[in-house]
């Protein structure tokens, strides 16, 4: 029958959700007008306690100005579409709750920096994906495929777990001052994805990848400013991953 005895305290009381006014200050850019130029525009909205920055952007787009352009898909932090600069910091709009920001002042939202702006909050992602592709982000093996799975211990699996979480949102790379001044730098995200394979016990392409990353536009450009780790919405220790790759290049152990 019912298991009343081992039941926890019933019902967390979430109560009424409070509403509040917030001003969103957005950087706009329309490529279709003559002499396109970036400009600021403000929108004032009534929002609720559980709303995220993405909800505010949708409210603007759906009720006030349909031309506002931004990318989004999953709306819960797993597709990597909506990295943007919110109050000067790179975050995912869908994972940033308004109540966690200071709503007494306008909330500024700009496109991520260092990639060409195409329209409003949309940037050209091609250079970002090009760097990713350069590090050979795929399992490299030699010899025959095993007939069943390759064995891997839980410890070996744990060695690269952190960097498997990457959703290629570019929050890290576009928070990096080195990347802002030198668009050729691979950037943290590409290094994170190289790390994911270098430290995978099944992979045999580590040496090749380390050679690529030893390049002048590779890991050595990193100046350990930690912006990337702070920016990562998946909580990946990006700076640590880069440090491990640097160490592997020097010691050739991984």
């Amino acid at each position, binding site marked *: 029958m*019912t298991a009343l005895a081992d039941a*926890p305290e019933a019902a967390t009381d979430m109560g009424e959700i409070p509403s509040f006014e917030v001003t969103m200050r957005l950087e706009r850019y329309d*490529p*279709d007008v003559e002499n396109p130029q970036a400009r600021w525009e403000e929108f004032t909205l009534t929002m609720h306690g559980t709303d995220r920055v993405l909800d505010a952007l949708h409210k603007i787009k759906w009720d006030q100005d349909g*031309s506002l352009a931004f990318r989004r898909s999953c709306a819960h932090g797993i597709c990597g579409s909506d990295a943007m600069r919110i109050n000067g910091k790179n975050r995912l709009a869908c994972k940033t709750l308004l109540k966690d920001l200071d709503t007494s002042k306008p909330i500024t939202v700009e496109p991520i920096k260092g990639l060409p702006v195409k329209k409003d909050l949309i940037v050209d992602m091609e250079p970002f*994906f090009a760097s990713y592709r350069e590090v050979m982000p795929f399992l490299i093996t030699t010899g025959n495929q095993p007939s069943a799975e390759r064995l891997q211990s839980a410890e070996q699996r744990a060695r690269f777990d952190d960097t*498997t*979480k990457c959703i290629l949102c570019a929050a890290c790379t576009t928070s990096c001052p080195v990347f802002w001044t030198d668009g050729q730098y691979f950037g943290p995200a590409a290094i994170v994805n190289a790390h994911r394979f270098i430290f995978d016990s099944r992979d045999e392409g580590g040496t090749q990848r380390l050679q690529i990353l030893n390049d002048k536009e590779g890991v050595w450009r990193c100046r350990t400013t930690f912006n990337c780790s702070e920016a990562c919405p998946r909580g990946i220790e990006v700076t640590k991953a880069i440090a491990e790759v640097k160490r592997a290049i020097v010691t050739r152990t991984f």
Partner: protein
Amino acid sequence: MQTHTYDVVIVGAGGAGMRAALESSGRARTAVVSKLYPTRSHTGAAQGGMCAALANVEEDNWEWHTFDTVKGGDYLVDQDAAEVMAKEAIDAVLDLERMGLPFNRTPEGKIDQRRFGGHTRNHGEAPVRRSCYAADRTGHMILQTLYQQCVKQDVEFFNEFYVFDVILTGDPATDDDVRAAGVVAYELATGEIHVIRAKSIVFATGGAGKVYKTTSNAHTLTGDGMAVAYRRGIPLEDMEFFQFHPTGLAGLGILLSEAARGEGAILRNAAGERFMERYAPTIKDLAPRDIVARSMANEVREGRGAGPNKDYVLLDLTHLEPAHIDAKLPDITEFARTYLGVEPYTEPVPVYPTAHYAMGGIPTNITTQVLRNNTDVVPGLFAAGEVACVSVHGSNRLGTNSLLDINVFGKRAGIAAAEYAATAELVELPEAPQADIEAELVRIRAGAGTENVAAIRKALQESMDLNAQVFRTEDSLIQALKDITALRDRYGRVGVSDRGTSYNTELVEAIELGFLIDLAEVVVVGALARKESRGGHFREDFPDRDDAEFMLHTMAYPTQPGDGVADSTVRLDYKPVVVTRYQPMERKY
């Protein structure tokens, strides 16, 4: 306008599309056209796992898996297809491992497996460990791994290209020689139209969850592939069967995987009662989703819901070790913290059913060829993944069977499309194949329409949540149909404020809304005509399964307004279910 020519064009770059591309790109000139960057696809949201009878941790075999799939689907599953899927599951998982997917491991270093709803040993005796997983990010790992392999194979992508039409040489209803000639795509960056000719076309555009308001699906899951095919006269199969996943975060719909219950979490009502013991005494919280979702909705309806409005129930993980939660369920517990401010270590999480999965879709045979009626295929046209209906899920999909479906049938589609392209000639394009969609785009972008896209969509989704969700009745469905008809009329006067050509996301939302309206109508009309309850479709006025009348697949065809069922634009027909080993039995758990 630009024209491109390929052997194979794959529409969609989620799990099904990329799995197909990996097969086809090595065999034929292949392009993948996707409205999202591949890694943004919603396959990445899948959490719990992908099942296969590997028997890595306990005895299991593909025949048990087939049985569970058939029973879980309330006997509307085509049993030949389920058998193919369960058999090929084992290679599908091993393929992914060899591609580098970082599965969780057993102490011996093999792929670990865990329990999931409806998967049992020996025909329902007890839950079995069949789901292969990578923490609670299995879909993320599948999507990333497939994309990595696509990078390796240098697969050609058209990213942020929206396919809005499929080019057929005739009317599938009447023309026995009808062939697929290509697709028409809209380039988001520039607003330019592209006609992409190909010998083989594979639709892999995923689901249609945005028909509903409360859903685990992405904003972009608007059923484009289904609607595009349907508008050209291809039927849609079993669309009234929509899966409502029991555990969406209350009020938000964000999913908390069934893996939580697989790892031991328990559903409780406001009084703290483990209410699933009353509804499914044997497997309790791990009963199939339709049963759990209805049980939850029933608890709320009968006043046993939790919270200030008594409108949700609670998912209790507090008896699990925090370390265990962190190792097995890290992402979903973070969702609870981020979006509801609830700490799952110590507090139960408010949950309520959320629209999750379209069991129906474009009908195909087991080689993924698209059917234009009960028996005939359209040569050169293929579909796989959530957009398709093979049908391996029948009236209710088991958890972990979709990641499996996209891999098994995605692979089959890639091979079949490339093989067909190797033997077929390119088909002549009809005159101005882009004309229809171009006219529609111009009407919306440059016309005088004043109806707002978001307002119509909101009204549609709210009506569907209210009238065509977990519980349905004749009255509620007729109300939904009325609402849809009125909204379709308003859609005829829709306009946008963005008149530009670059990244006009408002314009694409308007087109997507048109797809949603068509699909909502098909869902409702199918549900209205199905006067029984089966799997995900529950009619309060007909609470029992009726095998004599309804052990049939629904086939919905477009027709002239007013000519369809209940004055709709949908005509219905039915298709027999393929039964091989298992005679229908009552579904008890």
